[in-house]
């Protein structure tokens, strides 16, 4: 039997309150979804505990066990182009269980790539294609930075950099009620989590977690600068323990907010420091994190004269 499911099908089980952040326990996978799963980014993110790029709640870093395993366990297989056959997988005869992440399709007993990029594999037989792209495709539960563009009754329209604007209800902020409304101005920057994101529906943003707490989400304070980077760069620096970020922090004290949609907001005490940090991060567009890490201090010094 094959269960080819999207993330939403997996999670449409009765939603506890606002956000279901917990994946089903590991044993449930084995019983409910035998052999083959087609997953998309977010679910696969939770599964692959060994991935280097993950989405963490803003107030805490990666869980302890991840810090140990980070960087290990993901193996780059090769570069694939759309249409390339990754492997044969027949549900009738194949016995091993595989997981398919973003960029892969399963069709006629074959697993094929749909995106160009680096095919990667984790120890748990999870395959995905790591693509460098600039356009964001909304995924449920990802943290993004949005710009308020329109006020529409009880909701606001927020531009999150994908095809369609997301909406946010005035009630989805911490301590908000019908009496204590949260007023947003046009142009405000919001850091929130996507609660609804699928191809057929308008994305919906919230600024609270399942316990109705903001935990870092909400309107970004005035000051600071917002800029765009490619999505792979954003995934690189979303990890607060990234060596590149730690190197920069030796020199400057800064606040960094990274949205999975490639938007990055930086603030420091001095404007020139902000600009220096911004330029340092933009270096990642053109070089690997290791290379940028080596150059970070030198570039920062040059920019902060």
């Amino acid at each position, binding site marked *: 039997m094959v269960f080819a499911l999207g993330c939403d099908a997996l999670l449409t089980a009765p939603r506890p309150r606002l956000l279901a952040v917990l994946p089903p326990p590991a044993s449930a996978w084995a019983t409910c979804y035998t052999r083959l799963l087609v997953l998309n980014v977010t679910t696969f993110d939770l599964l692959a505990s060994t991935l280097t790029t993950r989405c963490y709640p803003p107030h805490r870093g990666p869980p302890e066990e991840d810090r140990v395993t980070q960087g290990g366990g993901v193996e780059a297989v090769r570069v694939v*182009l759309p249409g*390339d056959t990754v492997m044969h997988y027949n549900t009738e005869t194949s016995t091993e269980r595989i997981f398919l992440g973003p960029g892969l399709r399963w069709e006629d007993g074959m697993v094929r790539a749909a995106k160009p*990029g680096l095919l990667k594999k984790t120890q748990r037989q999870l395959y995905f294609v*790591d693509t*460098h*792209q*600039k*356009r964001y495709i909304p995924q449920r539960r990802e943290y993004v930075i949005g710009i308020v563009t329109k006020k529409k009754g009880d909701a606001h329209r927020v531009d999150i950099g994908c*095809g369609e604007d997301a909406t946010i209800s005035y009630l989805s902020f911490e301590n908000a009620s019908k009496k204590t409304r949260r007023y947003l101005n046009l142009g405000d920057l919001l850091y929130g989590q996507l609660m609804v994101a699928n191809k057929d529906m308008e994305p919906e943003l919230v600024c609270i977690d399942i316990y109705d707490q903001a935990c870092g989400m909400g309107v970004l304070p005035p000051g600071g600068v917002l800029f765009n980077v490619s999505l792979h760069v954003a995934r690189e620096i979303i990890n607060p323990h990234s060596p590149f970020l730690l190197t920069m922090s030796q020199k400057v004290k800064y606040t960094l907010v990274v949205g999975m949609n490639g938007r990055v907001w930086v603030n420091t005490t001095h404007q020139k420091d902000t600009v220096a940090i911004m330029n340092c991060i933009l270096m990642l567009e053109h070089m*690997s994190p290791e290379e940028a890490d080596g150059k970070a201090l030198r570039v920062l010094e040059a920019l902060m004269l």
Partner: protein
Amino acid sequence: MAQHACDLTFLSRSDGSALYSIGLTAALASVNGPGDVKVSNRLYNRSHVEVCYSPSTGHPMIRERALESIIMRTVEKAILVHLHPRTAINISIQEMQSDGLALSVSVNAACLALLDAGIQMKTTFAAITCCITPFGTILIDPTEAEIQESVAEATFVFDGSGEAKVLTALQDGHLSYEDFKRCLQQCQEASKDVFAFYRGTIEKKYQNEIES
């Protein structure tokens, strides 16, 4: 066969772009999307693909419109349009230099720009142009002058699967069935080199990551 060359992410602000040249013909393709769409073009079950071709001089006229529709129909077959309903994928192609191969260069540039943008596709595709001289020899990637002297010109677009299936075929001039088959077969052979070139180009883009 003329030399193929490509420069990915040529434009910094578009989602994906490629400058592609075959011999002396060059085109710049830029892809934006899946993104905002005009209400009139919004489709409920698939994304709208729009191709805009601008010539190197002057305004787009009938020739450009014809090229646009050929490229659009080709590209639509490759892109997985059903994955992003109510969006548009915009492909703009700017002809930079022309030496007879405008169509095949534009199609190849569009393919690489789509790859650069990371848009989900069923397969890659590559166009090959050939012409038949009055003496019956087939020239792959001819120049403008060679096309002028030839009896027939044909362009084929193949998909990237091993068998190189035909996605689009376009002929001009007097071409017998046997000649057509010969052209098709030789272009099919030539397409393998183009796909190998695509792979090399994309591998170069991800070089950084492979090493680290």
